[in-house]
């Protein structure tokens, strides 16, 4: 009896949590398989589910979607570039700070932490101005560099925390064998740090893929924007094809969800352990 009561109480929490979490995502899915009329009818399942919206999106058959594939490609290129650049910059910095004990490392770590604590929308204003000064506005490199700037501090922090836990005897042994700092970095440090590197790389990649604000500030040509910016353009029109907007949005949301679940094991331990140290 007492057990049944406990189960009932758990369900009483679990069911609302499931509805709360899934409702907006289900609504997105519902629109993507409905015609415009059915989408606007407020039904919870369309009478005639259709894949027509996907076909319109994939064949770019609407003037809002003229550059769909190009913009998807832009998102991919930018996300991958941000992932790798962040990994390279953060791994070298964490190695220098944590393992080589480079002088000034502590101060640089503090600079990174301070950057981590600037609210993203606040940094966007001076960053936009500076990108203008550098003549980078409307170049995809501007968005890549901006996202690396935002992702790197957290990446350095997480990697530094993980580096500190590696045994120092390894470095000593490698040194006695005559390893150079670069060999130590490549042959000992990077392989041992692999799980954290996967977590950090995925984090930076998803951050760039999902970004809206910086993308919409820094890029504006139809051919060089990322897909979220194009989705934002739908909003400014009065007769927005909402069912197509939702279909495109659903397509855009699938890769990050898949990547997240693939690397979940690394992400959860890597990110939560570094996120908050108390």
């Amino acid at each position, binding site marked *: 009896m007492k057990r049944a009561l406990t189960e009932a109480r758990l369900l009483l929490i*679990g069911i609302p949590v499931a509805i709360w*979490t899934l*409702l*907006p*995502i289900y*609504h*997105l899915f519902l629109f993507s398989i409905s015609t415009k009329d059915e989408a*606007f009818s407020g039904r*919870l399942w369309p009478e005639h589910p259709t894949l027509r919206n996907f076909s319109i999106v994939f064949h770019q058959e609407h003037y809002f979607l003229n550059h769909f594939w190009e913009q998807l490609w832009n998102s991919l290129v930018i996300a991958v570039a941000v992932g790798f650049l962040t990994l*390279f*910059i953060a791994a070298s*910095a964490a190695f*220098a700070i944590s393992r*080589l*004990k480079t002088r*000034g490392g*502590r101060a*640089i770590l503090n*600079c*990174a*932490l*301070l*950057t981590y*604590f*600037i*609210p*993203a*929308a*606040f*940094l*966007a204003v001076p*960053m936009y*101005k*500076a990108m203008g*000064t550098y003549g980078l506005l409307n170049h995809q490199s501007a968005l890549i*560099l901006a996202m690396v*700037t935002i992702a*790197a501090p957290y990446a350095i*922090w997480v990697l530094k*925390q993980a580096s*500190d*836990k590696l045994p120092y005897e390894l470095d*000593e042994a490698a040194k006695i064998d005559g390893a*150079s*700092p670069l060999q130590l*970095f490549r042959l000992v440090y990077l392989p041992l740090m692999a799980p954290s590197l996967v977590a950090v790389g995925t984090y930076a990649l*998803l951050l760039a*893929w*999902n970004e*809206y604000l910086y993308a919409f*500030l820094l890029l504006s040509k139809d051919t060089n924007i990322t897909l979220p910016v194009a989705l934002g353009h*739908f909003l400014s029109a009065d007769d927005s094809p909402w069912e197509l907007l*939702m279909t*495109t949005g659903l397509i*855009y*949301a699938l890769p990050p969800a898949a990547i997240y*679940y693939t690397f979940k094991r690394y992400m959860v331990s890597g990110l939560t*352990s570094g996120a*908050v*140290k108390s």
Partner: protein
Amino acid sequence: MSTVALPRVEPVSPTGPGKRRFSPWQTWGALLLAPYVIIFAVFVLYPVTYGLWLARHPESYTQLFDDPVFGGAVVNTLIFIVVAINLKMLAALFLSGFFVTARTWIKWLSVLFILPWAVPSIPTILSIRFMLNPEWGVINQLIFRLTGEDGPNWLNDRWLALSMAMLVHVWKSLPFWTMILIAGRLAIPNELYEAASVDGATAWQKFRFVTWPSLATLYLTSTILSMIWTLGDFNSVYLLTGGGPADLTHILATLGIRYLRLDQVDLAMATIVCALPIVLPLVYFMMKRLSR
């Protein structure tokens, strides 16, 4: 007792103290640090210094305070930070307790629960935006079918629209903070709970005397960190209400970007400077906590 504390190893310096100056290890260290130092100087230090320099004119502030939108944005920002964050963190604290319960279906639910955080904000926020559409949105159609009355015009009333923006924010970031607190709870040794059970403690007493003392520091840190980040949460407001109706739901982040889009960079920077009295104490607290 701190829970997610990471062990601090005090390492032996790879180089002896005497020959630090020109050793290849130090040279390599400097080279490896250089990429980040360059990124920091070019994309953080210079822009921020230049931005603060642009915000030096007192006239910008008179102009800003004369803008009727500004006062409302300050109030909205404070409500966002005090109400939304505390509700979210309390919910995260509660749900982290739910998710550590050992049941297969709860494991599966926790896998789904992370989705709002993992997917991009634009599709999901636009989806919520349409759900709230007064005529065609699924919520008002449901209200009409159940009661025969028209539902409220969700995004056309300042407080209603702001509440919805806060709900969007909570929906989006609740999974992340729940995950953090779950990690905190899992770090509490099980023996403590077993001992409490032997002593006949109730569920509330277990929370009050075992869980909370271990989790309090992490909870406080998370709350402060979430407050700092929420100040920069542009998407929840911009994509849901666009600052409307009649610019009544702006927060400082969206207002700053609005000035930037109108090519009034001085005003945009002044808006940000006005947020510093909230940001700086929080950042100071976090820096003191993390950089020891």
